[in-house]
């Protein structure tokens, strides 16, 4: 029994991390006032690039690096259209999502001769960090996770600090709240927006790498599975608080994990797959109801 709970726990953490990372990245764009709906595509591009680079260089590190680079490149493309050309951010975001989805599938089929999945023993997965904390219980709970998992936890604190304690964080929040205040101070809003976008790209790239080099070790069509939009929901629910971001990411991770664990011959798998999405919708509804009742809760 406790084995199953342990398995679910480990799964939960693994599934939560991509959402957590994407949400942290999205949080930055949220503060800057340019919410990024392309996180889904960025994550997918990261997942694809991670597998390709890891395969080509036989190194998970290169995979992670590749994921970041490609995701940032797409973020720059996004910023160019939204910040410089002032196009509608929803439109460009969705177009980018569909572009990346179809492009990654297209490239996969070309590279792998018509298959929809890029799988190979030569793809190097991200190693797990295993160390000894003394007791079996502590070891089970906190060790043996991928490097990115630990990195993500650290990043939560880094982002908090960054957003609330540094000058850049000040400018970031001002850009989202009253951009005029920055103009007179001589700070270019476009620079802030580009930076926010690039940072978001880095985080989404990492999220993708975790998906394709750790949770599983392959690339398959649309493997981001809507997680980029779940991250969007997380940001809307958390309203800028990093601690809430962690909590809700874990919640989704839990249902994501459960949808796999609970598979049996009695419940058709499709209903389980629906779970995380239903939970997302449910959480949004619950949060909105409570916000309506107490409009001044911060």
């Amino acid at each position, binding site marked *: 029994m406790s084995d199953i709970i342990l398995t679910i726990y480990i799964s939960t953490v693994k599934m939560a991390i991509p959402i957590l990372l994407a949400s942290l990245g999205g949080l930055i764009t949220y503060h800057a006032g340019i919410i990024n709906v392309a996180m889904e595509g960025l994550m997918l591009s990261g997942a694809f690039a991670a597998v390709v680079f890891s395969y080509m260089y036989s190194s998970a590190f290169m995979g992670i690096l590749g994921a970041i680079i490609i995701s940032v490149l797409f973020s720059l493309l996004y910023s160019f259209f939204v910040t410089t050309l002032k196009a*509608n951010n929803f439109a460009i975001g969705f177009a980018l999502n*569909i572009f990346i989805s179809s492009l990654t599938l*297209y490239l996969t089929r070309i590279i792998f001769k018509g298959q929809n999945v890029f799988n190979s023993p030569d793809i190097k997965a991200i190693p797990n960090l295993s160390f000894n904390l003394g007791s079996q219980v502590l070891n089970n709970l906190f060790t043996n996770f991928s490097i990115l998992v630990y990195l993500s936890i650290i990043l939560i604190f880094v982002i908090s600090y960054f957003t609330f304690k540094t000058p850049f964080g000040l400018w970031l929040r001002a850009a989202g709240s009253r951009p005029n205040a920055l103009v007179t101070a001589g700070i270019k809003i476009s620079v802030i927006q580009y930076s926010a976008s690039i940072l978001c790209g880095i985080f989404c790239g990492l999220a993708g790498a975790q998906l394709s080099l750790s949770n599983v070790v392959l690339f398959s069509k649309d493997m981001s599975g809507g997680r980029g939009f779940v991250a969007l929901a997380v940001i809307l629910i958390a309203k800028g608080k990093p601690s809430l971001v962690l909590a809700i990411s874990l919640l989704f991770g839990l249902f994501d994990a459960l949808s796999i664990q609970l598979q049996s011959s009695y419940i058709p798998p*499709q209903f389980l797959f629906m779970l995380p999405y239903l939970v997302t919708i449910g959480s949004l509804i619950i949060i909105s109801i409570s916000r309506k009742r107490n409009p001044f809760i911060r």
Partner: protein
Amino acid sequence: MFNKTKILKNISWSWALFIGLIILSWSIIVLFSGENPLNVFYYLLEGSVGNYNAFFSTLDKMFVLILTALAVSIPGSAGMWNIGGEGQFLLGGFTAAWLAIYFNTHLASLNIIIVLSFSAAAGALWAYWPALLKVRLKVDEVVTTLMGNYVIVFFTSYMVNFPYRASDSTWPRTEYIPDNFIIPPVSNLPFSYTFFISIAILIFIEIIRKKSILGYEYSMVGKNELFAKQGGIDVGKVKVRSMMIGGALAGLAGGLMVLGLTYKFMDGFSPGYGYTGLLIALITGNLPIFIFGIAFIFAALQVGSINMQLFTNIPAEISKVLQSVLVFFITAQRTINIKIKKKERADNYE
């Protein structure tokens, strides 16, 4: 007065540049597969407009794109983002198949209308709840409609894998619909009346938008909600209704697809038509007039890539890549055009 010829000249240059860049990007994408772009474009064209067969096949595919594009642009003009076209489409399609197969009443064409109405209603219902949540509780409709898509994909997949799976199927699908529900092709061409139905709807929507009071009110809600509200317009009603109309159109598209093209519902019924419709709506900026032209281009790309797949190494999925590239360029083009016009006016006013 400002120099109109100069504006036209500058805009023509930007159009030329723009088309050139599109062809360039498409060529680069094609090169990844190692094929010769010229070859590829040839097969694309051959497969989409090269002969009567191809041309009508292209036309035949347009109805889905027109309707799913409208499904986004009608709510869009009222300020609501309907990303749920995919789910509404699937639901409408499944509803049509289910009704046709299990509620057959042998009343010929009347039945087709009834079935299609239910398809539309199903789509409208599935669009109703995200709209209501947005209007009453301010829940973002982008996320809810999108999540909703995944739910319906799994739901219809379940339906077609378990309870309603045809016994003789190799791939999960329902039975074939009875003959009296089939929307016939036009004479012996490879395209059916579904094309005309979608055109009729498009024209109807356009007339309403421009000439009716409703069109004005929806447009004002989309441009400035508070302004519409203080003028006495019930903004909440407009928003919910616009979403329902959008959902109905997407559902209708699904129904038309079943009755006029596939004659059954199956796993993988939609290769992302809802999202393609979204792309088209984004390109045309919620203006129905251009939907026809863009839908044609998209349909051509889709149909042409099947031909292209036969003669080259390139998978048909490339059509989506080429389609989404268009969005970027057309958006950029539009913004640059506006800037050119503005600059001209400012420079030349005496």
